[in-house]
């Protein structure tokens, strides 16, 4: 196996899921529905039990008991299944439409003296994705924020169906464009898990280089954008230059700016010459050092530090209840990372340093990204120096049937693909997106802050709309 996990479905019950959640040893990863080969409609609960993924399938007969009261992390998953499969969840506090946009949708109304509503979006003022935010404010202070997303819902999971296993990687790349490589690798690993295929060591290392590069690109851009959001525009332009230098190095060494078209089930489609490996390693080292210096200077600047510190605090308990993943979780003191907890590919051979911070404010999320950039650059450095010789890809059967899933630590956190393959074509694909998981936590971080700080807080999470909406 090249990837982190393989476990067969256990037929179970909602009670079993609830018992696991109440035991305190399990974390809810995802919930999705599927109509199986045997014609039975099931809801599947993906759990992380003491660093082991488990899937529990529950046949749908009438209504199901909601697990949201036991684990609020389930709230959006159950709403989505309610939208898409018409499954009723008994005891769910809020089953309003999530993915669909009926005209009679009602936002939660906050009542009281001086409360007013501020609608923003879906079209925003910058070069960003669409989504609607309904603020209930008193003066400058946000009492409540309700995000209304899924404007970029493209029915992507459904589009996977009948796609060949090989072409699925291309679709995965278009789930969230800025994390395209993480998606393609998670998808490819799920195919490899399903078929029990191993990726050659060199292919695994090249994948890891791409995954860490994607993290560096995301974090560098985010720290720059955070500075830009508080009017400190020079670091924003500076980091944009560093990011572009890495995209151009990628073009020179891999023929692609964002590593599209590289990952494929069985390995990678591009090898790296010794000369390119050296050039790429130098570009990453230079960029990481340059970024570290600028980030330190920028965050030491009082006008930046003052705006970041204490702003948009995500409480550790709330983050845990909502199943928050990725840098946002780690900046609130929750030490989870798929690379360490469920190692896959090249990460099975190495120990990854997982930085974390306690405060959960914008400053902590900025520091989190800066530290992770440092770690990623050193991982790339090591991988390039110990790059195994040999092939980068193994063949994949093209007409078999199987089921598999796999997770990667994308720049935004735990990203998991679950697929069922019938005769070499995808019959069902579920994507657990870190953005879908983390979006419900943003209103908690915004609560009590001033409206003008919302863009800053939102940027500090930097969630993907398309990744969430799919």
């Amino acid at each position, binding site marked *: 196996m090249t990837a982190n996990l393989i476990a067969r479905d256990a037929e179970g019950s909602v009670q079993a899921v609830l018992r696991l959640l109440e035991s305190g040893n399990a974390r809810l990863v995802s919930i999705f529905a599927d109509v199986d080969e045997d014609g039975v409609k099931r809801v599947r609960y993906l759990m992380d039990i003491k660093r082991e993924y488990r899937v529990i399938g529950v046949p749908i007969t009438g209504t199901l008991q909601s697990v949201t009261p036991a684990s609020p992390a389930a709230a959006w998953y159950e709403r989505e299944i309610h939208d898409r499969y018409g499954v009723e969840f008994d005891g769910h506090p809020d089953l309003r439409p999530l993915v669909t946009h009926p005209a009679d949708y009602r936002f939660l109304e906050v009542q009281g003296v001086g409360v007013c509503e501020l609608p923003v979006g879906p*079209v925003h003022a910058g070069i960003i994705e669409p989504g609607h935010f309904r603020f209930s404010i008193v003066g400058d202070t946000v009492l409540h924020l309700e995000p209304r997303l899924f404007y970029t819902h493209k029915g992507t999971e459904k589009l996977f169906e009948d796609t060949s296993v090989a072409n699925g990687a291309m679709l995965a790349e*278009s789930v969230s464009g800025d994390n395209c490589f993480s998606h393609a690798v998670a998808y490819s690993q799920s195919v490899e898990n399903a078929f029990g295929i191993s990726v050659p060591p060199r292919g695994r290392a090249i994948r890891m280089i791409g995954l860490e590069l994607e993290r560096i690109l995301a974090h560098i851009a985010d720290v720059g954008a955070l500075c830009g959001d508080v009017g400190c525009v020079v670091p924003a332009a500076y980091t944009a230059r560093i990011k572009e230098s890495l995209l151009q190095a990628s073009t020179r060494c891999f023929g692609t700016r964002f590593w599209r078209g590289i990952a494929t089930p069985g390995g990678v489609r591009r090898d790296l010459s010794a000369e390119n490996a050296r050039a790429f390693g130098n570009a990453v080292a230079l960029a990481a050092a340059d970024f570290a*210096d600028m980030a330190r200077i920028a965050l030491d600047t009082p006008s930046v530090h003052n705006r970041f510190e204490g702003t948009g605090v995500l409480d550790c308990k709330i983050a845990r209840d909502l199943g928050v993943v990725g840098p946002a979780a780690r900046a609130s003191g929750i030490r989870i990372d798929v690379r360490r907890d469920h190692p896959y590919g090249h990460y099975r051979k190495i120990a990854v340093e997982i930085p974390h911070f306690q405060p959960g404010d914008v400053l902590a999320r900025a520091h989190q990204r800066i530290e992770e950039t440092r770690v990623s650059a050193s991982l790339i450095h090591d991988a390039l120096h110990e790059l195994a010789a040999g092939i980068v890809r193994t063949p994949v059967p093209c007409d078999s049937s199987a089921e598999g899933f796999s997770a990667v630590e994308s720049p935004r956190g735990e990203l998991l693909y679950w697929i069922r393959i019938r005769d070499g074509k995808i019959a069902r694909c579920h994507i657990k997106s870190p953005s879908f998981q983390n979006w419900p936590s943003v209103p908690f971080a915004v609560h009590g802050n001033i409206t003008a700080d919302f863009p800053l807080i939102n940027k500090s999470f930097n969630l993907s709309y398309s990744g969430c909406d799919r």
Partner: protein
Amino acid sequence: MIFDIVQRSLSSPRVLIPVEELLANSMGSRMPGVHAQALTATIARRAAASCSASALAIEDADGRSILSLDYGKCTGCGHCIETGEGAIFHAESIPCGVSRQALVLRWDVERGVELQYDESMLTAAAREIRAIVGGALNIRQVDGGSCNGCEAEIAALTNPYYDLERFGIHFVASPKHADMLLVTGPVTGNMAEAVKKTYEATPSPKLVVTVGACGCSGGIFAQSPEVAGSVDSIIPVDTYIPGCPPTPAMLLTGILQTLRQR
């Protein structure tokens, strides 16, 4: 401290790419070009069969076999290049900021020649805007439901390598301030109304440039019931920039080409 920031910034290298190196340069787009002379019927057939985006097709015109390549659908997956035996290669220049028809190239497979297309005229709106503001465009970017890949590249236009502002072009916060809408797609069912309203809020004369395979044709999402369609199925479009995503150089070429500034 702020002075350290300024000092460091001033001592950083100058990276601005000269405009001559950017125009008509599609390096890194991963999209294919075709050597007409090296093309054979077998290569053409195999390439068309390998295309995962239905961008390559074999057409029959009066008994002649024509290979057509629709850049408006191409995602740069590279399968055709892998099977193309050198006759199909990574293109160095791809039409950007042109009409939809001009994105479709055709080759006569047997005779090995590229068939010419009619280059479209400058649109009326483009003529009018050029007369008013010259090239100093105000652009409003609209995401009609994209994967954000195009947004990442559009945002890169403002970095110190490309520096769109050197042309007097900048991105504005409201459609009411815009001369040009730069719209990505596919336009989803949930975004169709917002895209229409944004178009209506933009004062005339206005230009609409659609960006990316999904914007041009719906791309790999064209068949989804959750997707309303390409941008031109929702609002009138002047020109098209293909790519998945288009590189900043292609975006710049397309924006300038729309006004025939270069």
